[in-house]
């Protein structure tokens, strides 16, 4: 298959950046989107040009490193997958493909398609945990957890922290990300003691990092590679109210 790529190139955080056009020739349909970029990069290196910089690692949709805006869609045209899982057979031979980094103020661009998502880690460090020291845990089966709660907690915990929800949100909100962790830990009895302080601290940090608020357009759910439901945002809101007035 043959494609024309329009790729965002930006040397550094302070560079203005702009689109550049590259051909992607003779790409096997079974190649992943990142493998297609590998092929283009090999060509660029051979001609002495710097390859397109992008974050990636596990290439099986779980580490959350890769995240490209492809033709205006986070992680490309298919639902429920990360960029690395996208296969070129999802495109039509001859397509033009526009590739951009996540664009959100809390995610400054480092180079080309690489952005800095450490703001998400700082939200986690503010309260996205259960405070339990190594060694002081009770016997694992001492506290039963209803299966449905455990399953729902797992649905939320499946978040890979890629930031697609932020990138597609017109407010650059990180509500889906925050709600996934708040929801997971609120559903489990182990998370109960810090239930109020957690939601408070995480939301305060989210605001401090410059992420916006949720205005219920649900673009985040539509583009989430792990199909995290916006119902978790509803639970986040309930948890917040409970923390403030409960």
């Amino acid at each position, binding site marked *: 298959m043959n494609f024309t790529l329009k790729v965002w190139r930006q040397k550094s955080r302070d560079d203005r950046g702009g689109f550049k056009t590259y051909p992607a020739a003779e790409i096997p349909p079974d190649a992943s989107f990142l493998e297609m970029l590998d092929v283009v990069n090999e060509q660029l290196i051979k001609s002495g040009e*710097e390859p397109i910089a992008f974050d990636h690692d596990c290439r099986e949709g779980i*580490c959350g490193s890769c995240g490209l805006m492809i033709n205006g869609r986070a992680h490309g045209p298919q639902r429920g997958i990360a960029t690395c899982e996208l296969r070129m057979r999802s495109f039509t031979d001859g397509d033009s493909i526009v590739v951009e980094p996540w664009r959100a103020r809390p995610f400054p661009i480092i180079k080309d398609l690489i952005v800095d998502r450490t703001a998400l880690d700082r939200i986690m460090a503010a309260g996205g945990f259960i405070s339990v020291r190594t060694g002081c845990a009770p016997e694992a089966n001492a506290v039963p957890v209803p299966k449905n709660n455990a399953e729902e907690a797992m649905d939320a915990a499946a978040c890979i922290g890629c930031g697609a929800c932020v990138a597609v949100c017109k407010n650059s909100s990180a509500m889906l990300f925050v709600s996934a962790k708040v929801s997971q830990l609120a559903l489990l009895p182990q998370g109960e003691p810090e239930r109020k302080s957690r939601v408070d601290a995480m939301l305060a940090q989210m605001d401090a990092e410059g992420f916006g608020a949720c205005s219920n357009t649900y673009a985040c759910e539509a583009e989430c590679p792990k199909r995290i439901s916006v119902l978790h945002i509803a639970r986040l809101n309930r948890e917040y109210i409970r923390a403030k007035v409960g």
Partner: protein
Amino acid sequence: MTLDAKIPSGPIEKKWDAHRFNLKLVNAANKRKYRIIVVGTGLAGASAAASLAELGFEVTSLCYHESPRRAHSIAAQGGINAPKNYTNDGDSIYRLFYDTVKGGDYRAREANVYRLAQVSGNIIDQCVAQGVPFAREYGGMLDNRSFGGAQVSRTFYARGQTGQQLLLGAYQALCRQIGTGKITFYPRREMLDLVVADGQARGIIARNMVTGELESYAGNAVVLATGGYGNTFYLSTMAKASNATAIWRAHKRGALFANPCFTQIHPTCIPQSGAYQSKLTLMSESLRNDGRIWVPKKKGDDRRPEEIPDTERDYYLERMYPSFGNLVPRDVASRRAKEMCDKGFGVGPTKQAVYLDFGDAINRNGKAWIEEKYGNLFDMYHEITAEDPYRTPMRIYPAVHYTMGGLWVDYNLMSTIPGLYVIGEANFSDHGANRLGASALMQGLADGYFILPYTIGDYLASAKFPAVSPSDPSFTQVKSDAEQRLKTLLSIRGKRTVDDFHKQLGKIMWDYVGMGRNAEGLNRAVGMIRALREEYWKDVKVVGSDASVNNDLERAARVADYMELGELLARDALHREESCGGHFREEYQTEEGEARRDDERFAYVAAWQHAGEGKDPILNKEPLAFEYVKPSQRSYK
């Protein structure tokens, strides 16, 4: 060099308790005076960093990812073992210990493995308390499943994302300590070398992958939790950035490298489809619980699998191993798959694959049941191959997955360099010549949560620490070496790309140092790797500068180290004239094609010492004694 593993005396079930009592403690008020550098934030690194900080030590944590949560432990699917005996099927610490020593084909240390089995239950307790959403039964209790190489159900799991959930648990504990200021975390830093001062590991040199600057980090001890070296083979189930540079550089600074040839080829991966392919994807071994592996009875049968009637299928594992069937250990399952394909029974477009069929399980329990257990794996398979595994059997083939070898450590997890600790997959660890399923997560977390935090205190409390600073020659010399290496790579300006070289190295490794090894091939591989390495330093083309983000330069430095490690791997495989676990020498097999060990000559850990550039490495041996699990030929029939 005499290797002292420092294994405590006494009966095996009392060794760890007695040892813990004998370890010196750092006074609670003094802990903050010690700084420990932890490199890597996977299961072992994150759990160690968090636990050390909770104890009161100052911790410097680094990783080459942008976030600790991206470490490749995240991709582990199947589960984690612990002998809780929740299923009442006769499990015990002793049985897990026994299974692991046997599974490792009698090439692991008994005392370490027993300790691993002992603390594994605590891991489950700890993770549950952190909020890890393990699978549960309707009564709210934790669910278990069985895994390859075991006849009891002792594996805890969180759908097909157990590694992700365990890592997020450890990551959250790490985040908490970052929040308290006890851990200073540096993202996008790649360790390029180890600093040894007055015979002690006192720091590291790391590259800031955003600015390109080489930075010095000093401390009282260094912990490497940097994972395995499977990417030496180019195609593997490892993440693209997973690399061996940290352990290889430490090796060249004096740490012994143990059993490099013990590499695990995992039986259930999605087969390769073309030369463009950048990595292989694993399908969890748990699939073998409900899937049946088969090939057509007729060679070159081109019918679609659904059209081949049951009577014309060869369920070869069930036929050869009636008691374990599809659940034989990984090394056995992998070798048999290769053998079937070599004989011409392979399936799919490349004929390098066998079927993993869920038809019976779906008929028996329904599609919904399979979906709940393996849904995400089936989706992943569908995404990659465009085939629906609910209807068409999966095609699978073995791929490089895990490395049992690694830096040699004693019972305290300390390498041969005082103050350098190595944990998780990076050490040569507890898995002997073959790792059983659901044991890697167990070992990484055992090292990080429950072993290293005790043993490192003993060293800190007893060693003397002269003041060091990054401006000392011990640091500046190592830093300038690292800088020079990068500048050299950039200045070669040859014709071939880094990937091109890496692919060629990978092909040599897979063809001659892969699933079937023999003396002739290994000798050839050593020569080919040397020649390739020479060519690399003459003809590699690396673009960009060393003063900014440069993915090409990062890769070039890693591949340079694979070129050296690959040779050691082949040499180790050549010297070990026996077959054991994942190391299969074609000259040493039984009439039935099983691995034939040679306990008289090879019941030892091969610990290789770097003797200087251009010199042959020196072999040191740590003899292995088996007092409890008497070596016998492993039988899974």
